[in-house]
């Protein structure tokens, strides 16, 4: 019954096995961290290819596999170029377009001609052996294909060397845009070689120039046409979200194929299709689709790159190919290096006369060094017809040597070189809100100054373009709901989410910060808008959210811990790979959405379990709360009535916190011990009712205010009424007076989330959305000053019972009802959200816009350093947060 159907499955089977092999090889390489930091992956892959090639050769006597040009050009290259183009940082690219074009066109021509002529010269001088049967045209042809910087090699090597963005984009852009030059030169020379050098007429040279223009401009146009089509299509995919990513892949790929079909520059076409469409597509498609597109593209490109390098290695082990001529090989190596350096220096000299920010010597060194040759050259040389190009075998061998030399030698040495030269590295830091604001302000200011000075410079035209884009293009290509959104607003939301995630990520810090951020309304009673209770509730409920879930019972504790683990594991390891243009790892900044999803899921499940567990109690609490709330209203003078909530109606729950050993063990990174991994485990589900006051005050390291047993809470009293407990002012966090209004407003906008009203200004709902408050804490923690490093927290935590966060303990009782309520609201909210994802109607979009969830919580102002807390050791958490969640700023 079982039949051996090898011939039937052969092709896909072999392909699948190769893919598997390549992927496994990658896993193996990354087992050893130390090894991979020194040796670039591309080098390892080539070595592996050499080994595999040797095995095949021994087994078969003949090399079965090699990098087929058709496979390379039709499948492998487009996946890499598509990824590169689509995720190209467009703003950076266009800012440096002049330099890129110069290097790509003039530089490549210079390299091609000089290398070709000099090799011919060497041939005439007898340095190259007479066996190499090639005339001037052949050498020029060879020069053309060997001189182009290769995008695949550049990405592979440079993504591991994080040079600054400008430098990267120039080298990388050059490698993409020189395709047109290479293609044209290659084709022109081939035709020259085929007709024979004697038959070439002057007209043919002009034809060559003309065809360059056609090939390059035509390629770009094809790409842009497809970009417009793609943008337009994604505008209408609202109902078919599931195939959104497919449109992206198909149209970008079609742009490539169409250009290839018309023998235009396919790389240019694909690159510009990607650059052009990115902005509109990303805005149109759903978040999930965005993630899908990103992951799929990166996966494909990564595997394509792996296969290319392995096959390069395998192709090298082939006796039939090796026609070695030392003279040719060495002179080629020398010439391409020399002319690369000369070309870069010469062009940079010209460029620097025009550039506002000149390229200095170090940049030039890296650029010269970055002239890597790769698989494109190999595929082109294999494509040569041995009938016309007699010396093909020599050229193939030389090309392989050149590729290996540039990828392996230069790839290996570029890292130390960059370090040694102290090339400015790419910063992984994400721009802050202030920087984002000013980035945008700059654009307008500079455009305005150019207009006033009557200059029509870069900013002037950029401004013009942006207006055109806003008035026509975006209207055509963007969904109406998206069209209205502001770019700065999105950035702002992103930053907020980022901070929120990092808070969750850090687990215990939420608690600490919340505790420390009890507002002191202090003496500034003059402020009508300040609202302690509300502010407190925000933080308090946030804390409780975290704590109570954990403390509900043994099961929940585990779950909480688990969640924390999941979170930790999800986020932590990625930190290591913050490659800006990395294809192998998503850069962190791009993960935000994803992280948010994880975060939401986790929070949701927590809320659900919590809710089901405590449902009844909440109900009771709520009514209690209401009553109390009205009481409080009478007491609290400054507060807005509807915000009044008293927190003390519940008996506080004692929780003991301890740093979780496992968790901390996981984070081997420096400083991790202090910064993260503290999980607050509720030890006692029995929740002691009496808080040992003496203990609170007695523990010297505790920065906590002792919560008075009386119903008067510290913050209450701070609010102006009631007795002021001794430690409170020390503990409390300050809202700068003039910011209080802002703070309250943002809180109110936070609250509006749970209320149907769309505008942030809408009703201040009574409920506090627990998740929101956590989010609110996001900014909070992110901005905690040095003295609040978790380091000081640790001193409090281990073993000491419940000293932690009296504030939160005090509020533990209080917020409970809110949590329940919040849970409900949350459900509602998430339900709405899902619906929205599906429908994505204008209305919901607008709500989303208005939904302050990720937007509104402005950071609370810096808390004051409590005298009692340990000396500010360690880094500022803010710094930590930044370093934890950072990613490239580009991609605008």
């Amino acid at each position: 019954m079982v039949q051996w159907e090898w011939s039937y499955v052969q092709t896909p089977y072999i392909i699948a096995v190769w893919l598997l092999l390549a992927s496994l090889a990658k896993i193996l390489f990354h087992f050893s961290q130390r090894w991979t930091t020194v040796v670039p992956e591309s080098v390892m892959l080539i070595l592996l290819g050499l080994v595999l090639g040797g095995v095949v050769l021994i087994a078969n006597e003949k090399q079965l596999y090699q990098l087929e040009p058709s496979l390379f050009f039709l499948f492998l290259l487009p996946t890499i170029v598509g990824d590169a183009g689509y995720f190209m940082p467009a703003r950076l690219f266009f800012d440096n377009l002049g330099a890129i074009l110069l290097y790509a066109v003039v530089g490549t021509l210079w390299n091609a001609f000089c290398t070709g002529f000099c090799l011919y010269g060497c041939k005439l001088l007898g340095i190259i052996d007479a066996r190499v049967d090639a005339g001037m045209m052949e050498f020029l042809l060879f020069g053309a294909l060997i001189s182009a910087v290769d995008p695949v090699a550049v990405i592979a090597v440079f993504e591991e060397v994080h040079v600054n963005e400008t430098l990267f984009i120039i080298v990388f852009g050059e490698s993409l845009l020189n395709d047109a030059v290479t293609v044209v030169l290659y084709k022109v020379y081939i035709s020259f070689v085929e007709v024979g050098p004697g038959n070439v007429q002057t007209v043919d040279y002009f034809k060559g120039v003309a065809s360059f223009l056609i090939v390059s401009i035509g390629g770009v146009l094809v790409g842009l046409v497809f970009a417009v089509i793609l943008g337009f299509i994604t505008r209408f995919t609202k109902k078919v979200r599931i195939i959104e990513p497919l449109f992206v892949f198909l149209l970008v790929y079609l742009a490539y194929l169409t250009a290839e079909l018309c023998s235009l520059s396919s790389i240019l076409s694909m690159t510009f299709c990607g650059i052009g469409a990115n902005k509109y597509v990303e805005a149109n498609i759903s978040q999930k689709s965005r993630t899908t597109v990103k992951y799929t593209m990166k996966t494909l490109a990564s595997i394509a790159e792996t296969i290319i390098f392995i096959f390069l290695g395998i192709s090298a082990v082939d006796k039939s190919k090796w026609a070695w001529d030392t003279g040719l090989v060495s002179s080629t190596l020398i010439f391409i290096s020399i002319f690369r350096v000369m070309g870069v220096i010469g062009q940079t000299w010209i460029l620097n006369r025009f550039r506002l920010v000149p390229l200095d010597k170090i940049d030039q060194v890296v650029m010269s060094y970055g002239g890597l040759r790769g698989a494109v050259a190999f595929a082109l040389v294999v494509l040569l017809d041995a009938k016309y190009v007699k010396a093909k075998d020599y050229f193939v061998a030389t090309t392989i040597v050149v590729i290996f030399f540039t990828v392996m030698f230069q790839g290996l040495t570029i890292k130390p070189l960059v370090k040694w030269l102290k090339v400015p590295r790419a910063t992984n830091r994400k721009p802050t809100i202030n920087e984002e604001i000013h980035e945008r302000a700059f654009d307008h200011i500079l455009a305005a100054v150019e207009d006033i000075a009557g200059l029509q410079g870069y900013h002037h035209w950029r401004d013009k373009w942006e207006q055109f884009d806003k008035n026509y293009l975006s209207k055509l290509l963007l969904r109406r709901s998206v069209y209205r959104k502001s770019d700065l607003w999105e950035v702002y939301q992103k930053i907020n989410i980022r901070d929120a995630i990092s808070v969750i990520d850090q687990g215990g810090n939420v608690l600490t910060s919340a505790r420390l951020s009890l507002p002191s309304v202090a003496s500034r009673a003059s402020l009508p808008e300040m609202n302690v209770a509300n502010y407190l509730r925000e933080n308090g409920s946030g804390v409780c959210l975290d704590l109570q879930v954990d403390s509900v019972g043994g099961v929940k504790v585990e779950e909480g811990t688990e969640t924390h683990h999941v979170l930790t594991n999800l986020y932590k390891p990625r930190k290591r790979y913050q490659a800006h243009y990395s294809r192998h790892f998503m850069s962190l900044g791009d993960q935000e959405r994803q992280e948010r999803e994880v975060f939401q899921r986790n929070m949701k499940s927590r809320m659900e379990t919590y809710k089901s567990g405590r449902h009844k109690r909440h109900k009771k609490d709520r009514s209690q709360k209401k009553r109390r709330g009205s009481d409080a209203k009478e007491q609290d003078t400054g507060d807005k009535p509807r915000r009044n909530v008293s927190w003390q109606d519940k008996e506080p729950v004692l929780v003991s916190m301890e740093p979780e050993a496992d968790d901390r063990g996981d984070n081997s990174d420096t400083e991790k011990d202090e910064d993260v991994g503290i999980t607050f485990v509720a030890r006692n589900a029995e929740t002691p009712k009496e808080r040992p006051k003496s203990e609170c005050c007695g523990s010297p390291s505790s920065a906590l205010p002792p919560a008075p047993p009386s119903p008067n809470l510290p913050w209450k009293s701070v609010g102006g009424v009631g007795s002021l407990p001794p430690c409170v002012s020390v503990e409390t966090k300050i809202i700068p007076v003039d910011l209080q209004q802002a703070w309250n407003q943002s809180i109110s906008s936070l609250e509006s989330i749970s209320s149907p009203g769309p505008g942030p200004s809408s009703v201040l709902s009574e409920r506090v959305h627990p998740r929101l408050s956590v989010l609110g804490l996001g900014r909070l923690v992110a901005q905690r000053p040095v003295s609040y490093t978790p380091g000081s927290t640790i001193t409090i935590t281990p073993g000491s019972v419940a000293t932690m966060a009296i504030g939160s303990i005090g509020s533990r009782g209080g917020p409970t009802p809110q949590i329940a309520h919040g849970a409900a609201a949350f459900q509602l909210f998430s339900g709405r959200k899902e619906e929205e994802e599906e429908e994505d109607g204008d209305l919901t979009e607008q709500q989303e816009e208005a939904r302050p969830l990720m937007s509104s919580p402005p950071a609370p102002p810096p808390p004051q350093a409590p005298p009692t807390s340990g000396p500010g050791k360690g880094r500022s958490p803010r710094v930590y947060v930044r370093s934890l969640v950072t990613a490239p700023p580009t991609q605008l």
Partner: protein
Amino acid sequence: MGASQCSQTHPQKYKQYEDFADRTGFSLEQINNLHKRFRQLSDNTETISRENLENIPALANNPLRKQIIGAFFDKRNQHEEEVGSIQEIGFQQFLMVMSHFRPPGLKMTEEEKEAMRKEKLRFLFNMHDTDNDGTITVDEYRKVVEELMSNNDIGQEAAKAIADAAMLEVASINMPHMGPDDFYEGITFEHFEQILKGLEMESRMNVRFLDVDTSTMRCGKGK
């Protein structure tokens, strides 16, 4: 138009240009070009008023035009230790403001670069600090963001939220140790410097002033 009377043929004018060049760092050609532009804007009079600038058509869509124009009439940008605003500015003042947007030279020392950076930052700061009191208050900052986003119909609330978040960020970066009674009054220049450290001002806030005479290429105001 009017190119001949302000070129080197007039020795007196030439001398004045050299004086300007010393003060502002512009080359004589640049000054000459800017002067032509100045005459154009002022309808061949000696001074420019706000209306002259507001009438530039290319500025119509610029969300920050008010601030920019305001900066031209701000005495603080004239390096003369004065505050307040001027009703009409002459060519020298015009040049002075423009000089804030000079690109750094190829052979600048670190100190010069730093000074230039400070100068550019100060310009920006003055633009935000509308009431000349040395701090950018929340209200002032909100105003900036609001204007910045005025092209998007996103609403004041959003702008406010962003401005407030930004403000809090500034506060937390610069004033980590605030006492219970402290409140953050606003961004001082030092703080401003601090928060924009990440932006390479000296290489960002630049405009290329042309050395060559382009009056023949230009056509009319603002175009």
